[in-house]
């Protein structure tokens, strides 16, 4: 799998490149700013671009803007946004239209090499990844007459994993249950929350997010 990296800290950029290289990725581009990233994405068409949300020159929203640009101009290129703060508002912006091939993770997560590499793979393959912290915020959000109260603890766990972008297979192995059991939980959750059951897993992410946000 081919990957482009945009990160202005040299230390981290090279660390990431080494990590992904050792994990079997082909790092086709390393950039320290958004313009360079867009240029290289256009020329190399990587499977996934990993983007620091804070890029020069102003370190404001250049990274996010680059991620949104790649999503609109190169739909075949997945985007994984890394940030030192995870904000619900940014996740909602990033996933505004679709959750396909999008990820948003706290930068801290790259220390957990195995999980991080799995997340990059998932996003590169067109899946979605949402930082657990955001999922937590969403799930624990206070609602008047909370519909989540109707879920069993197990169903809540499944809901959280779904929201984070896990596939049924992934949920099954996380919770050490069968895929069939996961499917049962999922349809029960959708029934209780009154959501229309949707086909693909990334569309499922969006449906759950929209529900949790409101």
């Amino acid at each position, binding site marked *: 799998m081919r990957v482009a990296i945009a990160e202005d800290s040299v230390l981290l950029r090279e*660390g990431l490149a080494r*990590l992904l290289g050792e994990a079997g990725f082909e790092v086709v581009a390393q950039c320290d700013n958004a313009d360079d990233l867009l240029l290289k994405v256009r020329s190399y068409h990587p499977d996934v671009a990993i983007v620091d949300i804070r890029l020069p020159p102003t370190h404001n929203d250049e990274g996010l803007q680059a991620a949104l640009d790649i999503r609109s101009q190169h739909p075949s290129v997945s985007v994984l946004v890394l940030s030192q703060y995870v904000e*619900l508002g940014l996740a909602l912006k990033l996933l505004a239209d679709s959750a396909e091939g999008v990820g948003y993770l706290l930068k801290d997560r790259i220390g957990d090499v195995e999980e991080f590499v799995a997340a990059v793979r998932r996003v590169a393959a067109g899946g979605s990844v949402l930082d657990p912290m955001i999922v937590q915020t969403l799930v624990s959000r206070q609602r008047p007459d909370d519909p989540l109260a109707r879920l069993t603890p197990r169903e809540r766990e499944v809901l959280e994993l779904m929201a984070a972008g896990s596939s049924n297979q992934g949920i099954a192995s996380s919770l050490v249950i069968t895929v069939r059991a996961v499917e049962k939980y999922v349809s029960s959750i959708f029934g209780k929350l009154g959501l229309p059951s949707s086909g693909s897993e990334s569309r499922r992410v969006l449906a759950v997010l929209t529900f949790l946000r409101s």
Partner: protein
Amino acid sequence: MLGTLAILACAVPLRSIFVATSGDDVDLVAVGLLDWITVPYILAGAVAWLRRPASRLGPLMLAGGFASGLSALQLTHVDGLYTVGGAFDVLPAALFLHVCLAFPDGMLRSRFEKVLVGTAYGAALGLQLLKMSFGALGPHSLIELSAQPDVVRVVQHVQLLSLSAICLIGVGLLVSRRRQAGRPRRRSLALLIDFFALGLVMIAVLFIAGTFAMPGFLAIQRATLAVIGIAPVVFLLGLLDARLARSAVGDLMLELRADPDPADLREALADALRDPSLTLAYWLPDFEAYVDLDGREVELPAGNGRTATLIERNDGHVAALIHDGALDDEPQLLDAVGAAAGISLENGRLHAELRARLEELKGSRARLLEAGHKERQSLERNLHDGAQQRLIALSLELGMLEQKLGDRPDLQSRLDGARQEIAHTLEELRDVARGIHPAVLSGHGLAVALESIAARAPLPVRLTVDLDTRLPDRVEVAAFYVVSESVANIAKHAEASVASVLVSRMRDGVVVEIVDNGVGGADTEKGSGLRGLADRVEALGGRLRVWTPLGGGTRVQAEIPCA
């Protein structure tokens, strides 16, 4: 001297009576009209000369009066007087032009005007004499050399047409002068200048009509003489106006005794001075500057038709009256008004000083806040680019190391422990950084930053952010803290079951409103942090209001201007 002139003026009607009785076919209307010009010009000229000896306008008007008086002599049947009257026949027109252009100080302003007036005199007197020498006035003229009607006609045409052209140029000069003055000058003055212009136009029309022997010449002539005669009347009215103004000082003193608001003082002074364009500037010694009532610095005018009259009291400058330059002609009036308004101006000065200091304080408060904000922003940046990045890189390094140690579970778990430790540190650092400055706010704006506050609140918060553009940094920061602080307050004290946050644009800023359905009765002074929020909002020129009836929930509303 005035006595002499008055006698001379009174002599004019006597002369007219003499003229009228000296023959039986004298045009009495013409005599009357000529007196209508002569008397006011002589009187107005005398008064002007007396009141402003330095100005040449008085003598000029006197000369105009006498010239028109002399021109009436052509109505007599005494050959000598008839000749003199004939020679002065057209001269009053040139003199009138001279008066118009030389008003108000009696001086012509440019070389062009001098040439113009000189040409007018040449045409009015020189050509007149030339005309007469060729027999223009018939056999009774003493200076007729030979009678040549053709030459007379040509000279007459040249004379009248050139004079009417000159008069029209004079009108142009007056109009452009009035345009340059820009703002409305004092009313009596404007009226006078309008009369001058009208008079010049009528002279031009009269001469053109005379040249081409148009019908109704007599009517035009009478109307022209009537208008020209009014100009000195208006001039005298203007002088009288000044006298009335001086009596207005009495009214002013009465008004000031009621101790008017400093804002009304200007009106009162403008009324007393009859100058609606009057403005006041107060002297602030500590700032070494003149300021208006709101404490904003003003420059005293230099030229341009505006003048500043400085008002002094016991120990120095108090204020300056900035008024139309025409008022300079009435120094006593200005002095009287200045003296009458002394104490009120002193009050106004104190008021202005207070405002100036308040503005200064506001400015420094806003600057302090801004400086603090900048400092926090750069601290957060340093933390982000420095410690946080290094720790993440370190964690990454440990993670990769852990991977390499395939079969050493003891070391692996120690490395894992170290990574966890780094993760905790990063979390703490993140909280610290967020406390210093919410980076997401400057990066992505209010809507994004408030989303997390609403989502993390321990009660349901409905968030509506109705903004289409980013706001200035300091406004976003203030609005952010108003929301985060208010939501924290609600969580701590309000016992509310639901809250809503509304952010919307107002004309030149933003309105932030946080409403809950809790117990109300919030402490707005201490402990609740509301005071601190109010400080923050007020430093930006905004205002924070809190409605918190017992048992009726709490509504916090902040209006923050963007300017």
